[in-house]
């Protein structure tokens, strides 16, 4: 693992870096309405990814830019690589020993995140993740939210208290749990647990929040609350969300990327993708006629 020196680029992620001059990402027909580089939080440039040391590529030459301060939805049939792409963005795929980015570059705020001097630990503090199955620790509600700060070495009680309250408020959970911060997080309902996981993620103040089907284990009412929450969080964070729910994508996202078999088929404003897609495959998928 690469350790960061103070001058390491990842430690400076908090202040957006002017992206260096480079070959502009290919503007393909399937990417008719590209995000200009200076507005992009995440630039995905010709990325291929493999789980087996490059024998087979799960992602194939993906290129698109994810705008800052917006919600971007990744859609596509099961197994097309949405989660894989998401997990590339905070290098969670490092956990799979044989995984490898075979071609291309992912730049976040201009920095190639797979560069040898990038510490994935520092990266993940800036790129938070919310998982499909809500996974709070079997600790108190308070300790769950404080977890990220504690592992950063913050011990000051007042500071933790403040951060916990603020995060729970931002996650629209404060009013429901403020009287039982010290009881177990596992006593909460599924929807509350997922909002707690969101609170836990934003407590460390990331720039980007990745969400992998955050509502798939929840009922419609809990889902609606998370969607409201996403709309609110969008002001502060860049959000990338994987969803299987077309309505959800139209409700919460500004941009939508449609994937099929590891390839990016189409990427555009959500209204365009769902109203007037330029590729028939996209049209078939979003209208439910996929076969």
């Amino acid at each position, binding site marked *: *693992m690469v350790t960061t020196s103070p001058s390491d680029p990842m430690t400076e992620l908090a202040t957006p870096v002017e992206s260096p001059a480079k070959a502009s990402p290919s503007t393909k027909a399937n990417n008719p309405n590209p995000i200009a580089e200076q507005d992009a939080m995440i630039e995905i440039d010709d990325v291929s990814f493999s789980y087996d040391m490059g024998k087979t590529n799960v992602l194939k030459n993906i290129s698109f830019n994810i705008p800052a301060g917006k919600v971007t939805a990744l859609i596509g049939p099961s197994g097309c690589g949405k989660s894989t792409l998401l997990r590339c963005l*905070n290098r*969670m795929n490092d*956990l799979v*020993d044989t995984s490898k980015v075979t071609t291309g570059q992912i730049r976040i705020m201009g920095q190639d995140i797979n560069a040898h001097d990038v510490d994935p*630990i*520092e990266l*993940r*503090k800036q790129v*938070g*993740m919310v*998982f499909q*199955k809500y*996974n*709070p*620790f*079997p600790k108190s509600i308070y300790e769950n939210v404080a*977890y*990220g700060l*504690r*592992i*950063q070495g913050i011990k000051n009680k007042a500071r933790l208290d403040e951060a916990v309250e603020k995060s729970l408020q931002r996650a629209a959970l404060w009013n429901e749990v403020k009287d039982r911060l010290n009881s177990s997080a*596992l006593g909460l309902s599924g929807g509350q647990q997922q909002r707690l*996981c969101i609170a*836990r*993620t934003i407590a*460390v103040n990331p720039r980007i929040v990745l969400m992998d089907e955050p509502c798939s284990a929840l009922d419609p009412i809990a889902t609606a609350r998370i969607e409201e929450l996403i709309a609110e969080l969008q002001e502060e964070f860049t959000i990338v969300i994987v969803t299987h729910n077309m309505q959800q994508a139209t409700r919460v996202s500004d941009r939508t990327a449609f994937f099929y078999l590891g390839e990016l088929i189409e990427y555009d404003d959500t209204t365009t993708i769902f109203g007037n897609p330029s590729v028939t495959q996209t049209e078939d998928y979003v209208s439910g006629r996929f076969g």
Partner: protein
Amino acid sequence: MNPFKSSSSAQKTKDGLLSGFFALLTYLILGCTLFIFFDIAKKGLPVLMPVFSEKGGEVVDLDFLTRMPETLVDYTDENGEKQSLASSDFIEYTKANPDAVIENKKTNAYSGGGIAGPLVGTALLVIVCMVVALIVGVAAAVYLNEYAKQGRFVGMIRLAIMNLAGVPSIVFGLFGFAFFCLFPLPIFTMIVNEEKSLAAIPMFGGYLSFQGWGNSLLAGGLTLAVMVLPVIIAACEESLKAIPKGFREASLALGATKWQCIRTAVLPYATPGILTASVLGVTRVAGETAPIMFTAAVALKGKLPWQEADGKGIFWVSDLLTDSVQAMPYHIYTVAARIPRTDATAAMQDGSVFVFLLMVMTFASVSIYLRIHFRKKLKW
């Protein structure tokens, strides 16, 4: 017409016979176990709790639990009745009654007094074994399960560890004797024995001497630890594997380092499983005689270990650890195999076995209790 009528009665009979046979075997095992247990309890309980004996007496014979083993003297008194006394009691008795009639006097080694020495010795061995085995076992399991790249090499290490579980205990005993008792290993000591010590470095007002540890608590505890390691490593790995992937991912995604993740999101939730399995594993080795026979145990000792230890601080601990101990399994082996069974010696034999059985059962119950307790508390 019944649509669910059995179609083949021959099949049904065969099924019934088979299940009956299996049940029979199961109850046979249960029967054997119960028979052994009740036999030991019937003979041993009156020794520990004389109220239950034919003669009656105290509720618990505290002497049996608090005195060191010594020689037993049995004789016939003036009424022609058989009597038996621990040798120290016998000396006092004859001093106080110089003209008491003593006939057919016989002495039986190790069969008098109590079992305080072996009880304490076994407890100390278990503690040393548990501490060492837990530290090494958890470290190994964490490495194998969390850090090591899963591949052929790690698979081979695992296989080797599992094979270790099949090694006969006498081999562990001999290994322990060669490595811990004879091989020059570091130990703190106040006085350097020139003959035994390979080198001695002055330290803390004494010496760090490289010498064999000899027949000692430390050598025995370590030998037992090596023996229980495969069980503990396997159990730890199971416990680690049972921790949901979500905990690790959540922790790492929040910017935890690998060790922070293990320390805060994995180990705390694996601890109950690790502890439960370890207690159970240690219970099993605590009953082993072969590994401690050459490495730690002696048949007779006058004092409890801490009454004999010299020096201060680290030197006191060293002295305690390098002293030999008595141990329950070895004590039972001695009194059962080396002392002929007579009416007089039977009490020590039966009593020791019974108390040891209770001791081991207590350990096992604790481990079962821990498991149930934690299972209720930690659910996800």
